[in-house]
């Protein structure tokens, strides 16, 4: 009588053990992918002060825009979690677009080598953010699917696994900032 019960319990425990390990693996993948996004976001926030300095030299009276960008930059730096960061990042993208649109009115600025380089760097960073987001989201999808599949779903609650947040992007934001001269 006792032996079959022990075997069944052992089998269940081994199963839970495997499920737990596979969930942890996926979760680690998700957070690794997220740190990739963070690297790119950091690079972006590092570029912005330089950009502002350069633009200020040519277009000093666009003060409102500078203040707004500085503010959004610190919002992005202090943002926590995928959703908040994604939102802050999107707002920053929008405002940077208007900055580059404004730059159109200043021929000297447009011709500045420094400005062009910064603009290239920023475009490249935006592309990299887009790609790291794609990698992150595919990992999140895999992890969340694992969590919701029966019978894992029953253990996942018990073991306190939470679904991960997608790094959202508005559709129109998928294209990098393009400024035509």
């Amino acid at each position, binding site marked *: 009588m006792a032996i079959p019960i022990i075997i069944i319990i052992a089998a269940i425990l081994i199963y839970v053990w495997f499920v737990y390990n596979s969930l942890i693996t996926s979760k680690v993948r998700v957070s690794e992918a997220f740190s990739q996004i963070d690297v790119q976001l950091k690079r972006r926030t590092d570029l912005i002060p330089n950009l502002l300095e350069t633009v200020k030299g040519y277009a000093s009276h666009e003060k409102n825009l500078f203040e707004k960008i500085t503010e959004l930059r610190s919002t992005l730096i202090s943002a926590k979690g995928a959703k908040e960061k994604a939102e802050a990042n999107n707002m920053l993208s929008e405002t940077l677009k208007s900055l580059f649109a404004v730059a159109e009115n200043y021929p000297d600025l447009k011709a500045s080598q420094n400005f062009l380089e910064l603009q290239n760097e920023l475009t490249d960073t935006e592309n990299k953010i887009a790609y*790291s987001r*794609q*990698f992150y989201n595919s990992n999140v999808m895999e992890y969340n699917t694992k969590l919701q599949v029966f019978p894992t779903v029953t253990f996942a609650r018990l073991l306190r696994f939470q679904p991960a947040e997608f790094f959202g992007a508005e559709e129109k934001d998928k294209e990098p900032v393009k400024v035509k001269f």
Partner: protein
Amino acid sequence: MEIYQAISANKNKTWLIMFLFVVFITTVVYVFSKALGYGLPLVGLALIFAGLTSFGSFYYSDKLVLATANAKPIKKDDNPELFRIVENLSIGEGLPMPKIYIMNEPSPNAFATGRDPNHAVVCVTTGLLERLDKIELEGVIAHELSHVKNYDTRLMGIVTILVGFIAIAANFFMRSLWFGGDRRERGGGNIQMIFLLIGIMFAILSPIIATLIQLAVSRKREYLADASGSLLTRYPEGLASALEKISSDKRPVRSASNANAHLFIINPLRGKDAKAWFSSLFDTHPPVADRIKILRSM
């Protein structure tokens, strides 16, 4: 999930091929040494030699492949645009940045090699850079990075070296049969005669076996890499039109040979063909038209 299965299948196949190589070489040497009248110590020597070759090619296949392809490494400043494309797509695949090599070749083509993603190399020809636009180039690089991610590059590297080795060895032994066989005293009895026949058979068979191994490991993965590459760029048309451009160029890649042809995104030996049904059995690549059709229907 499927990618993790593909990875472990590739890793297992790599070990299997390394093992089969040792078995194959030792068996062949055994048969030859019987046929030509040498003793067993030669077989032991062959066993050690084959084992060393097998492990050596695990670590050095990429360097050998790059050397035979006559490819040179480049830095970021040499071609920032190509560098950025590779950088971005590796981020999208979650891979470390591979090294980039360039082959000075007018014929457009590309391949990837390296035993794992940390030792990966993506190699393109100058012809490819000249003829493709950015979106097409992204399609090709994404295809190559999928090979890296799947560990196709590990298996392919091993296959290139070991199969190439078998081909050379077969050639060599064929010759030693032709020219050296006569020198031994005649009338060694029936057994020697039988072994001689087996020896000849092996000499004829081994290139065929080698080719078949090469095929078994190579054909389907092109479709797979096309598909997962397009998943990364989200734009299958880029790769489709790149394949069209590459295949429309009929010049063969000069440094390509039977041993490394299967590494390339499109068979680099075209122009030598007048394809009959039989030779299409030995194709290392699926028909380009099929690949383009599948990409366009995605």
